[in-house]
Every structure is written in structure tokens, then in C-alpha cells.
């Protein structure tokens, strides 16, 4: 480990002990669980015996990567409380929809993966398209996250970038290799707890320093005259009225209705955790439990960014300007706040929280990749008949391969940084159309295999085309995003919306002229053809719909409070 004199933080012996203990704990859990991971069901679906709480916390932790923590804290510093939309309207309705409407079909169909559901519902072509795109993008994204984390560790702690990449990724590879999804889920729950305990203190001490919420708002207004950083909806009437350059239509329909539903209901990285639930009720409850915690994540992610606006003496700048001038960038707001409030031991806990976030996100990527590769690509296209042991072995080695490809991607990004923008854009190409295909497949029995495949393909191609159109001709932004003033985030949202519409229209039109599957082949896959477990015998407090209603009411109240 090399140190750099320009590092942001210095760790004491206690801090290093806290971090070392964390690494020992996650590896120990992996070794311990190896003996419980013998069958494919164990390795890829954690034996399908997770309680709703474990599955729900793991579901959320897999999404809480370190980039999520530091990236959204940075966005909160840059754009203010508007970043909260990605946690509330950009997540809660979709998570509740997943729990109440979609999970029963995923679970009852006994699929191993989201592409596996497409195989059952629409056939091999749709599965192949979804599996290949998911597998490819997952390892690339994992590499980008790995590089970004190593860069942060270099800036914050002065750690050598190669050491950070190899130490953290090989740790993840080892515990997932040993215990598969079971080990990933166990560690994700541990990581979830550490993320909260490591990051929550910043918000608590920050609010004490500023004299509470009102004191913080006053300081932000004083430091940033003429700009509104603390209202969630009231500045979204026009693109030019808010620092994000976005309109409420994009937030509600692009983010809330399409991007979030696409991510939370069809991205196998998160859905896999819920498929590991022990029964249908647990599978329905898990996303609802996840949603209740997701709603609180802004208190450890967005609030530190806002507190940074209120209390940090220096003005943070964009990454390019930071490199040129030596100033601190937006991305450093969370580490700066850690340094401001956390003494020895607490600092180690905070850094552990960031590492835990990175590792939970990476474990999510590689375990999902191993499952999709083994069940949706290797088994149907390379080796249809093999023993369960063979597929488990393939899953284990695929975990290692996935990590190595991710490391390769990290080094590629190190050489060609523009790749990062391209891959992140590519990932978004698949999410919105996939949601259109899956939701039509689940809720509309008339959707045909041809309709599903061509809708997915057309939606994906339309998204790529719109992205390329704006790249080649920036004035096209006024057509794609309905305004030439729209910024990147707004463009992404409108592109998602259009590609979803293309997917749905093509699916409906092609389905109308092609032959549907007979009803008996749709049992367990489609609403109206599937007998869902009755909940009439349960007490009110045992029913998922009851808890979903409570989460929905709190969600509405929070939006009104911070309007």
C-alpha cells in the first residue's frame, strides 16, 4: 500500500484494525458457508430459503454500491434535494409494484433469472437477447464501479490504485466463489448494517452543527443566494428553474414510471435476491421491506451532501476543474464530511461503510452474472445436459472469470476514460424496453412470443438510435428530450420513455398479427392464467398489501413535507 502526501484522510491504527476486521469477517463468512453450498439451488438461489427480512435487506444492499453512496452525495451537493427523487419517486412505486404484482409470477414460475422468465413466457430468442445484453453489461459496469472506487481510495486515502482494485475484487471473488448467492446475501446484510452505522453519524453531527433542518436550510440559502437547493417539486415547472435542468414530466414519467420500474423490476442484479425468498409471501414482502429502508437512505446519502453545502468552507467543483485547479470535487463531499466529524475508529467505520457499499454492489454483479451465464447462456447454448455439480462448478469459475473481466474493464477505463460514459449509456439502453416486455408478458395473455422478441429488439434499437442521433447532432436534443435546454439526466429519462413506448407498441402490433400461446402454457406466468396464493386467512398485519399501503402513505407525506 503506497501513501500519497495529497491524500484527504489519514487513518490511525484503530481505523486500520476496523477495516482489517471487516475483510476478515466477509472472508470468514464465505469460508463458513462453503459447506452449505452444494447444489445449484444453493449456489445460484441460496437454497430459496431466505426470510423476507434477509431477502429485503440484501435486495437493497445489492443496489447500495459505494458509487451510489458517494455519487448521490455528490449529486446532492451539486443539485440539492432534487437528487432525492432517485430514492423516492424513482424507486418506491416500482419496488411496491414488484412486490405486489410481479414477484408472484417470477416466484411461481420457478425461474432462476429474469431472462429465464422470458424463455418461459416468450421463448429462446427473447431469453438470449436479454441474457447476452445483461451479462455483457453487468461485468462492464462492475469494472467501471471498481475503477471508480479505486480512484476514490487513491484520492481519499492515498492508496495505490492497483492495490485497491485487486484487494477488494479478489475478496469479493473469493467469498462468492465459496458460498455463491448464499454468501453474497449473508455479506450484503452485514454490509447493509455497516453502511448505515458508518454513514449515519455524519447526518446526526451535521444537523447538530447547523442547528437542525431549518438551520441547515438557512445556511444553504446564505451560501448560495438565488438558488433553490432544498425543494423537491416546486422548482420543476421549467427546465431553467432548477440546478438539474429537468422538468417534472421527465421526473414523473421518465424516472418514476419507466427507468425506475425498468431497473427495480427487471434488473436481475436486484431481482435475484428476492427470488431467494422462502415462499411467495416472503418474496412479496422483501421488496416492500426494501422500499421502507430505501425511503430512509437519503438521510445517509442526500443529507450529507446538503450539509456539505451548508458547512464546508470551500466550494467543491466538477471533476475536470478539480483536476485542473487542485480543488476538491463534488465526488469528495462524503469523505470530506467524514474527515470533518469522525475521529479515530469512527473514520475507519466510515471508510468500511464505503468499501462495504462497493463490495455489496460488486458481489451483486458477479453472482447475477454467474447465474445468467450458467443458466441462460451456457446451459441452453453450450451444454444442455450436465449434472448439477457441473453447473455449480461452472458458476463458481464464472464468478472468478466475471471478476477478472471486470478488472480488465477497470484497467481499460483507466486508459480510455470516455468508455465510462459509453458503457453507462449502453446499460440504460436495455432497461426500459425490458420492462415493457416483461410487464406485458405478465399482465397481457395475448402477448405472443414474436411480439415479445420484436418489441424488445425494437425498443433497444430505438434507444441506441436516439442516443447516437443526439451524439451526432446535438440539436436533436429538442426532439428527444423536448427541449434544447435539457441536460444529460433529462435526456436519459426521455430516451427511456420513448424506447419503452416503442417496445410496447411493437409488441402489441406484432402480437395482434401472430399466434398467441395456448392458455395452458401460460399457467404460472401470466395474470389471469395463474392461481395466486390466497391471503384471506392472514391477519391484516401479515398481508403484504397492508405494509405496502403504509409505505405508500409515508412516501406521499415525505414528498409533501419537502415539496
Amino acid at each position, binding site marked *: 500500500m503506497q501513501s500519497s502526501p495529497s491524500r484527504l484522510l489519514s487513518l*490511525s491504527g*484503530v481505523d486500520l*484494525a*476496523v477495516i482489517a*476486521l*471487516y475483510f476478515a*469477517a466477509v472472508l*470468514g*463468512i464465505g469460508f*463458513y458457508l462453503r459447506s*452449505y453450498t452444494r447444489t445449484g439451488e444453493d449456489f445460484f438461489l*441460496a*437454497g430459496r*430459503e*431466505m*426470510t423476507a427480512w*434477509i431477502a429485503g435487506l440484501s435486495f437493497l444492499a445489492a443496489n447500495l454500491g459505494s458509487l451510489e453512496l458517494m455519487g448521490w452525495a455528490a449529486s446532492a451537493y451539486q443539485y440539492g434535494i432534487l437528487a432525492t427523487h432517485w430514492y423516492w419517486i424513482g424507486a418506491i412505486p416500482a419496488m411496491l409494484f414488484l412486490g405486489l404484482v410481479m414477484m408472484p409470477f417470477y416466484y411461481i414460475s420457478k425461474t432462476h433469472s429474469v431472462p429465464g422468465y422470458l424463455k418461459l413466457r416468450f421463448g429462446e430468442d427473447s431469453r438470449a437477447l436479454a441474457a447476452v445484453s445483461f451479462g455483457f453489461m453487468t461485468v462492464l459496469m462492475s469494472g467501471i464501479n471498481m475503477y471508480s472506487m479505486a480512484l476514490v481510495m487513491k484520492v481519499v486515502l492515498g492508496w495505490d490504485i492497483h492495490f485497491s482494485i485487486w484487494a477488494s475484487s479478489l475478496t469479493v471473488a473469493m467469498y462468492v466463489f465459496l458460498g455463491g448467492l448464499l454468501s453474497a446475501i*449473508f455479506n450484503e*446484510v*452485514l454490509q447493509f*448494517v*455497516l453502511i448505515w*452505522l458508518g454513514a449515519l*453519524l455524519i447526518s446526526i*453531527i451535521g444537523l*447538530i*452543527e447547523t442547528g437542525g433542518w431549518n438551520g441547515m436550510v438557512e445556511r444553504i440559502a446564505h451560501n448560495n443566494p438565488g438558488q433553490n437547493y432544498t425543494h423537491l417539486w416546486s422548482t420543476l415547472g421549467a427546465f431553467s428553474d432548477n440546478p438539474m435542468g429537468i422538468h417534472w414530466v421527465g421526473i414523473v414519467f421518465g424516472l418514476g414510471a419507466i427507468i425506475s420500474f425498468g431497473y427495480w423490476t427487471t434488473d436481475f442484479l436486484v431481482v435475484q435476491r428476492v427470488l431467494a425468498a*422462502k415462499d411467495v409471501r416472503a418474496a412479496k414482502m422483501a421488496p416492500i421491506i426494501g422500499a421502507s429502508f430505501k425511503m430512509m437512505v437519503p438521510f445517509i446519502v442526500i443529507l450529507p451532501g446538503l450539509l456539505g453545502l451548508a*458547512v464546508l468552507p470551500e466550494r467543491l467543483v466538477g471533476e475536470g476543474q478539480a483536476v485542473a485547479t487542485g480543488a476538491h470535487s463534488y465526488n469528495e463531499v462524503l469523505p470530506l464530511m467524514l*474527515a*470533518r*466529524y*469522525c*475521529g*479515530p*475508529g*469512527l473514520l475507519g*467505520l466510515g471508510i468500511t461503510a464505503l468499501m462495504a457499499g462497493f463490495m455489496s454492489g460488486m458481489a451483486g454483479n458477479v453472482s447475477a452474472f454467474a447465474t445468467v451465464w450458467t443458466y441462460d447462456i451456457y446451459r441452453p447454448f453450450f451444454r444442455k445436459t450436465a449434472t448439477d455439480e457441473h453447473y455449480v462448478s461452472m458458476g463458481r469459475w464464472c464468478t472468478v472469470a466475471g471478476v477478472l473481466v471486470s478488472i480488465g474493464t477497470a484497467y481499460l477505463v483507466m486508459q480510455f476514460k470516455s468508455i465510462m460514459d459509453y458503457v453507462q449509456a449502453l446499460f440504460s439502453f436495455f432497461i426500459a424496453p425490458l420492462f415493457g416486455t416483461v410487464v406485458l408478458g405478465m399482465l397481457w395473455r395475448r402477448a405472443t412470443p414474436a411480439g415479445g422478441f420484436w418489441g424488445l429488439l425494437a425498443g433497444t434499437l430505438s434507444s441506441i438510435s436516439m442516443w447516437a442521433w443526439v451524439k451526432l447532432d446535438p440539436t436533436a436534443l429538442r426532439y428527444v428530450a423536448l427541449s434544447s435546454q435539457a441536460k444529460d439526466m433529462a435526456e436519459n429519462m426521455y430516451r427511456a420513455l420513448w424506447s419503452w413506448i416503442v417496445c410496447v407498441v411493437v409488441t402489441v402490433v406484432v402480437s395482434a398479427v401472430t399466434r398467441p400461446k395456448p392458455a395452458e402454457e401460460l399457467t404460472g406466468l401470466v395474470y389471469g392464467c395463474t392461481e395466486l396464493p390466497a391471503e384471506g386467512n392472514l391477519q391484516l398485519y401479515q398481508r403484504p398489501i397492508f405494509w405496502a399501503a403504509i409505505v405508500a402513505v409515508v412516501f406521499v407525506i415525505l414528498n409533501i413535507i419537502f415539496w
Partner: protein
Amino acid sequence: MHRPGMISIWFFIGALLLVYGVLILGAGLYEFVVPPEHPVVRADLHAGVWWGLLLIVLGVFYSFRFFPGRAK
């Protein structure tokens, strides 16, 4: 997730939090007795002391509640 003989994840979490609590409380008490040359902002709150205590309480609860062989 109740396989015979399998240790609950909550026990692992409790044990780790207990050790973390002891370390952080120890560091907090040391800073209380020997104030650092460059204290953090609001060092007067002694966050290490009460956060360490909180971790110890959580750690003790989960370690005992889910101790191997004791958890249901």
C-alpha cells in the same frame, strides 16, 4: 434460512459490532483523556464514546440473541 446447525447472519453481525464498539469506545475514551492536537468539528460531542457504546449494546444484543444453538 434455518438449516440445522447453521449460524445466523445476525450472530456474525452482532459479534463484529461488539468488537467494533470496543475499539471505537476505546479510541473515543483515549481522545477524551488526551485531546488531539487537531480535533474534528464538534469534538466536544465525543461521538466516539457514545457511538462505541451504541455498537456495544447492539453487538451484545445480537450476539446473545442469535448465539449458535440458542437462536430459534
